[in-house]
């Protein structure tokens, strides 16, 4: 299973973090620091996997953002990368040519999308259309709610 997902910018700023295992805030913070320095320092010409403590980190750079997934020893590394790619494709489809700013200003949306794709550290939805369908359904419902309130 995936232990956590991290999005960090090239400057090392956190854009999104999600832990799927219980982890105290302070450890998360330390982990982010450690992991981001490890990954930002890797040359582009090496493979996208990294052994870290007892886990494996799979990361990929999209424009100025690094998407990092921490998986367990027995997991399939390449598949984890594809999962990251799937997430990116979903973001791209939802925002339309996603860029870092979209994630900065709408990071809650990114969390919603991530929640649709991954539940408790396992990929649950490999269909982009289904993910986007769920998200737009939620968006619509919230809008209705909002409108109803304005009228009322």
């Amino acid at each position: 299973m995936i232990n956590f997902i991290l999005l960090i910018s090239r400057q090392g700023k956190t854009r999104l973090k999600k832990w799927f295992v219980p982890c105290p805030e302070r450890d998360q913070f330390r982990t982010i620091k450690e992991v981001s320095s490890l990954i930002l320092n890797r040359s582009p010409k090496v493979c996208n996997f990294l052994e870290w403590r007892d886990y494996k980190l799979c990361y990929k750079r999209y424009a100025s953002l690094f998407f990092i997934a921490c998986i367990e020893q027995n997991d399939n590394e390449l598949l984890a990368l594809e999962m990251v790619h799937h997430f990116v494709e979903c973001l791209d489809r939802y925002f339309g040519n996603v860029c870092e700013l979209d994630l900065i200003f709408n990071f809650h949306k990114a969390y919603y999308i991530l929640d649709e794709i991954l539940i408790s550290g396992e990929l649950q939805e490999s269909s982009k259309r289904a993910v986007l369908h769920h998200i737009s359904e939620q968006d619509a419902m919230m809008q209705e709610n909002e409108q109803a309130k304005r009228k009322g």
Partner: protein
Amino acid sequence: MSGGHLSKEFFELVKSIGESRSKQEEDKIIVGEIAILKQHLSAPNISAKKMKEYMIRAVYAEMLGHDASFAYIHAVKLTHEKNLFAKRIGYLTCNLFLHKDHELMLLLINTMQRDLQSANHIEVCSALASVCRLVNLEMIPAISPLVFKLLSHPQEAVRKKAIVAVHKFFKIVPEAVLDQKDQIRKVLCDPDPSVMGASLHVLCEIAKAHPASSKDLVPSFVSILKQITEHRLPRDFDYHRMPAPWLQVKLLSILSILGTADKAASEHMYEILQECMRRADSGVNVGYAIIYECVKCITRIFPDHGLLELAASNISRFISSENHNLRYLGVTGLAQIVQVNPAYAAEHQMVVVDCLEDPDETLKRKTLDLLFRMTNPQNVVVVVDKLTFHLRTSVDSHLRRDLVQKITSLAERFAPDNEWYVNTMNTVFELSGELVPAETAYNLMRLVAEGAGEDESADTAFRVFAVNTYLKLLEKPTLSDILVQVIAWVLGEYARLATIDGYTIEDIADLLSECIERPFEDPSTRGYLVTALLKLIGQHGLKSTTAEDIIRSYRSSRMTDLQQRCYEFEQLRQSPALMRKVLPYDASCEDIAVNKDLTFLESFVRQKLDEGAKPYQNASERAARAQTQNVPKAEVETKPSLNFMPYEAPTKAPPVSFPPAVETHDAAGGEAPVPTGLNVSGPRKWGPSGYNQPGGKGEPPQAPAAPPQEKHVAPDQGFSQVQTSSQKPVPKAEPSGAMNEKQRMAAALFSGLGGAAAASAPAAPSVPKPAPAVARAPPQEKEAPPPSAVDLLDLDDGGSPQIAQSPSPQGGDMLLLDMDDSVLAQPTPVPVPQPPPQPVQPPQPLLGPLQVTTPQVGAMWPQLASERVVQIHTSLGSCQEMMFRMQNAMNVSPVEIIGMEGIAAGRVLPGNDPCFLHGKLSPPRLDIKIRCRDAGVAQNVADLCQRALS
């Protein structure tokens, strides 16, 4: 999208954070923001919209590493709201803020329960998402019935999240979920593929925990996988045109669990695995991920030759790819294939050497792992050199610990000679003594003390070597604690053997006493040194004032253990004769007779009783207030309970209970000839079973076809070993200039892997692989092993060395045939060739001894499919007796005795399959549990037990 929908305040905040130039500036902004938020939140009647924004701002603050706990309660309150919008924000933020043991969880349970029963499926989904994230042990009884009900909810999104929640329950309390197994299995047949897919996760966990009870699902999993690969799922599930790759990989990993060591289950899978690999090969990354998973599965299930070939050919494509990720997968996959059949590694030796020098740290590590797995007695020196080099250069503590473990394990299993072993271990101790487990040092000391046990003069020579080595080492200014402990012990025991000029016993004692003053991390190290001095003084009647001064000065040490030793020294010095008796020379392996009944105290007790003392009663008797006059014998054990009586005056300790800590270990070892948890016989046992010794990796020895080829070669012949009978242009040990550095390295690394033809490939790639028939033809030409080889080979059947020298149509000949790569050409890996029928043959013993440790037994136990339980009415009184009987009558090795239970291990002859026996003795009843792979064997062993142990 931009920030247009945000409030001005939040927009400014995000913008200023984005523009901040330093962490300090960022912190300042957030501290201000938190103050504003606190103020806002304390206002009454906040609208839902405002509240949402505040919550998100609080999440933002937490994300940047600040504490926003003041907002938690508001998040929980939001979940109580009727308004769906507010509720969702509430759940989202609760998921981010809280954890399962947070005190606010109490306030959330009721809301969750209500929402799980809501008619609105979005509310249910939000609650389920929180359940998945936040559920804890106390909540499960309240929540699980509701969640199980949701497994048949009309909305597929709800069913899906519900099964994930069930998965979470399983991780916390497996029992709660196993009761509802049928319901979970029903989800596997859900009409919606994504719900079915979600159920695979929990089914995978269940299979991992209880493989036997999930075996009946194998055909279902296979058929689902078949349907997926045939593209029967809706197009929605395609990812880069690959049908549902995540489901495929999950199914494959479940199959690999269920197929482990189960031939029948594995046979169901062969076809689909082949099909799956074929269809996945479409040139996209996700396809490679599936192929890689197939390879993993193939190496774990009961081996099939065709599939292994297929896996190997795919892996060789990966490993020679330009893509770094694929190369990584190639090396990792190869490491797994090598465990089944080491010969496959030979093909890729140049690539492996390249990977070893790759700048990519990850790739390098994986390659080291591969090397570790393909080590055999011929290449152990080179591989350990490589590992040691990385241990020297690496700073990552995880990697270092891993390397230490690998080097130690290799050195213990494959050491070509004792000197090499000692030198290797010294290097490890020196480089990272703090990471070495104490057992490793004990193993080394034991080796010095006991020697190889075959030739007394060789053992003595080895001791001399060890003493000289350690004496030289002691001159170094800094030494790790564990090394000092080993040095102290060896010199204390055997200092008189030192043959270096200019070192007398006095000098050694001085060196040791100087050493005491060094700073140490482990306080017991000084104890080792003091005891070593004690032994030197005791055995040689030394009068070293420096040593005595130092020992005296440590009487006031804060370490009570050290103090004790110093005071003991003071006392012992009074009577040199006693001292010599207590600290004898070279007696660490002798048994120490412990008088458990303390009979020597009888007269003392009688005297006291005559003087009117009360007879001793043990705690239970005192508690029972029973009639007590009939306990004349003193007993030492008391049950643990509060003691309100003053302690008796201490009686003088008997001399036998005096051994210092170092010797305690040896005493314990010497007392029981049974090997305890440690595999101490490692360094001296590099027999052919060494490579595929199952315990080493916790993997079942699925491929007994591992290389028996080392039988005909001497380990010290280096890389010239790669040549076997069948090929002509082979890189020689003395290369004629053609062989460059890398090839030399490759040849050294890959020696003894059996892929003879492959080994020559880099030198002469155009040479066609010899047909297996050719390889088989000239076994008679095989060189007679040099005499040294015969000594070193610890073959199970004592006759083999002669067989190797003079091939005759007997078992040994067949073994030789099996040595070259004709193994590859055989359709199925035949474990060990049966010798041709002979006119008169003594009955084959069913089992042979197997050296494993208790944890290894524990790891392999569940993987063995067949179990037999026998109840025997026995005359045996103690576990030791039982073990002895097992050892004699059934030819198994004892593993451990724990109280009235004993574990023994054997391997099923012919072959290497483990068979474990667990006996629980409660006289006159004896319960024996037998575990092994084959049910027939288990029955035979059970019959044998009945006969042998009644």
